[in-house]
């Protein structure tokens, strides 16, 4: 079966959208419901650090250079999501105008460096 770039997925309350440390292959746009972002604290325990609601994006690591999810995400209520599949996205980008591919790569690099800066600032605050 061909995997589409964007698909619709319902995640029941309590289920994980993705696990920290697993390869980031899908980004989630929350359409309805609430998602809790869980990060590891200094003792290695996962605890809630943020909440995402309609319009928010979680798992954005899937839009960056290949790597793992830095945090986990759990559906707090029954959640309706739009899922962006990175593999299918790459296929589409490779088949499109090189301008669009280049634009995507630049944005991806910019996003990564901004997220790195935020992470570094968070660490300093801890």
């Amino acid at each position, binding site marked *: 079966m061909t995997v589409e770039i964007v698909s*619709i997925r319902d995640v029941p309350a309590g289920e994980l959208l993705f696990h920290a440390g697993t390869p980031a292959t899908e980004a989630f*746009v929350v359409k309805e419901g609430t998602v809790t972002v869980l990060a590891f604290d200094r003792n290695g325990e996962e605890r809630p650090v943020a909440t995402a609601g309609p319009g928010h994006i979680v798992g954005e690591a899937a*839009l960056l250079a290949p790597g793992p999810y830095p945090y986990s995400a759990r559906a707090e209520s029954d959640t309706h999501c*739009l899922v962006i599949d990175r593999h299918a996205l790459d296929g589409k980008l490779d088949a499109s105008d090189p301008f*669009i591919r280049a634009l995507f790569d630049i*944005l991806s690099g910019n996003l990564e460096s*901004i997220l790195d800066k*935020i992470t570094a600032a968070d660490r300093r605050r801890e």
Partner: protein
Amino acid sequence: MTQILNRRLVTEGSVIFREGDSGTSAYVVQSGRVRIVKGMESSTPVLLGHVEEGGLFGEMALIDNSPRMASAVAETSAVLIAIPEDTMRRKLGDADPVLRMIVTIMIRMIRYKSTDARLEQSALSELEAAAADTPERPGDGDAA
């Protein structure tokens, strides 16, 4: 700033655009180095990064019509190739609607720093329509 066709020669220290301006061009750095600074005129300017030869900057305001999120300053004298707004729009307009949407999502995330990014309902509906249009898709709850 000297402008010859699409090419601009900027001298060291000159401001290419200012935060808050409305954008009319994106730029590719042909030679030299450009500094991107947020809050340039404030007491606590933040250096967002440098754009080196071959790099693109100033593209975001053209895509989502927001004002420039930061200022661009020539760190060295530089030669820039301006990509006009209509060229950018045409390229994006010709692209797959899903790709266009994803590019917009990424720009929102860059602007509003990841978790603060939120798509408005119209953008969500557009993306959902694109997803629903596709003939084959994994079923709900499927781990694709």
